[in-house]
């Protein structure tokens, strides 16, 4: 044969063996690399804790978040009410726990929708000039309207409901993801391996989905975590302004808004929902930073 390094062709079992060890080795390498980045591990832990809280809210919460009790209005944190009570006697701790559900649900769905839509718009915008112009001008149009203003306007049009909050925030954050996906796709499109696949006769769709999409997935996923985080802030802001979830729903934003009204007397009304909002968003941002290095193949 042509070259002295050529070992006779192994049997199928040996190859399977080699494959398993290599796959395990590659996964181990990735795990070790992620654990090295302390900050993003901390971020992941925070996010996991929040998810657990959201899922097991009923068993964690000490009271029914909606049950009012005028007798116990504005009590400071005590053994009975860990985070104190609000103006109409509802237990702040239980409402914060249930609030986690709202925030995470909004965050996940807005993050997910804007990532998927953004990826598709970005990919197809990178395919031809005309489509690119149309799609990108629409994105620029939407992005020039400030996020919160657009969200507020959409909410007033659609009416106060969790479903509408998600729709509005998805419309607000999709253009950003689309623009980023499009610029990454244009960079990938110039790479030689895309040209090579065209030489090898691959169809346009195969190149788009099997070669361009996987290579812009990493930046899109990272952008998704940040979209997730900003969706939580946006939902809180909307509820704070009274344009978010219907009143009475235990959302961190609306609790903060109620807290502002009694800022002189009830510090706990602001402290606890505020802490949870900030912590969740910080966790997501830290995790997002760590994810960026992990998914970037070149840094291995």
């Amino acid at each position, binding site marked *: 044969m042509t*070259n002295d390094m050529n*070992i006779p*062709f192994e049997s199928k079992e040996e190859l399977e063996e080699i494959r398993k060890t290599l796959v395990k080795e590659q996964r181990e390498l990735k795990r070790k690399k992620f654990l090295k980045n302390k900050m993003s591990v901390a971020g992941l832990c925070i996010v996991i804790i929040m998810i657990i809280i959201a899922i097991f809210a009923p068993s964690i919460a000490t009271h029914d978040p909606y049950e009012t009790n005028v007798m116990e209005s504005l009590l400071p944190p005590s053994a009975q009410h860990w985070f104190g009570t609000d103006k109409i006697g509802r237990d702040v701790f239980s409402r914060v726990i249930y609030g986690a559900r709202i925030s995470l649900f909004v965050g996940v769905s807005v993050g997910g929708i804007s990532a998927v839509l953004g990826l598709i718009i970005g990919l197809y915008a990178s395919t031809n000039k005309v489509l690119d112009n149309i799609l990108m001008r629409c994105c620029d149009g939407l992005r020039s309207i400030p996020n919160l203003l657009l969200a507020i306007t959409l909410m007033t049009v659609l009416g106060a409901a969790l479903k509408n909050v998600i729709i509005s925030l998805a419309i607000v954050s999709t253009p950003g993801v689309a623009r980023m996906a499009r610029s990454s796709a244009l960079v990938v499109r110039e790479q030689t391996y895309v040209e090579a696949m065209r030489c090898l006769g691959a169809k346009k769709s195969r190149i788009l989905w099997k070669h361009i999409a996987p290579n812009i997935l990493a930046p899109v996923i990272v952008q998704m975590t940040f979209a997730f985080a900003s969706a939580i802030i946006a939902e809180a802001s909307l509820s704070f302004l009274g344009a978010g979830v219907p009143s009475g729903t235990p959302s961190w934003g609306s609790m903060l808004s109620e807290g502002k009204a009694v800022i002189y007397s009830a510090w706990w009304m602001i402290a606890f929902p505020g802490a949870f909002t900030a912590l969740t968003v910080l966790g997501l941002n830290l995790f997002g930073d760590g994810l960026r290095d992990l998914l970037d193949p*070149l840094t291995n």
Partner: protein
Amino acid sequence: MEEKKVVLSSEHVSQFFPIKNGFGQVVNYVKAVDGVTLELHEGETYGLVGETGCGKSTLGRTLIRLLEPTEGNVVLNGEDISHLSEKEMRKYRKEVQMVFQDPYTSLNPRQKVGDILMEVLEIHGVKDKDERMEIAMKMLAKVGLRPEHFYRYPHEFSGGQRQRVGLARALILNPKVIICDEPVSALDVSIQAQIINLLQDLQKEDKLSYLFIAHDMSVVKYISDRIGVMYLGHLMEEAETEELFSNTLHPYAQALLSAVPNANPHEEKQRIVLEGDLPSPINPPTGCVFHTRCPYAKAICSEKIPVLKSVNEKHKVACLLYDKDLNPDAE
């Protein structure tokens, strides 16, 4: 010399890239390749040299139909593939393939080497997975890689090894013609030697024809049977390697060859230094594009466009100095 079978040829191929203004109207053209005629014979290595911006890579991409020629035709094994659609072109992909310069961007970082090779087979209808794996494994061995490389990602390979994977991917469809676009320029000297030897061994074994595009003259001289020198989109001179170096005719080719340093300290070289800068391909000089920098330029050179003419059966040149019918007082 019996007439060799022509596997790939370009007939007056031109490639003009339109320049558009703000409103999308075409204002001018970048004349990257301008009327190049060239034939690649079976089992031969045709070296295509020239400096940056001379259009050699663009010509290579046009011959493999990554780009559609603006003028002229590309003929592959006797069939005109100049303006075929992507679907029609697919069956010809088995006959001509390409190897690229930059090892770090020519492989999809998200795909394992094995999948890269198997996907090519899948595209061309090899249905059975085991069969695809077997072919891919054989091809890896053929380019000097070991079976466990099958499951590794491109970033786990050195530059030289990646070029081997690129080569394996190009050869897996058993094409007869390979266009090598500067395959060794990005590699270190010792790795370069390994890839050059591998290319030559594969050529002997499968009777491949190479269009070897490069700017490093000593590599091209070593590996090519015939060499073509390009300047600003035009093929200036074409000759068998020995003939070109011993009897260089075109003034640009003379200057180019004299500028190439030789790894021999004793040789005192007398250099022809070209004045001025490379003109822009957007509005190249009239007549012969080299006349603005040519030491022998005459008035006629700025009027008439030289045509590639045979000086003998091993040597063609496009220069009015040697062209009787265009230029009465030629040699």
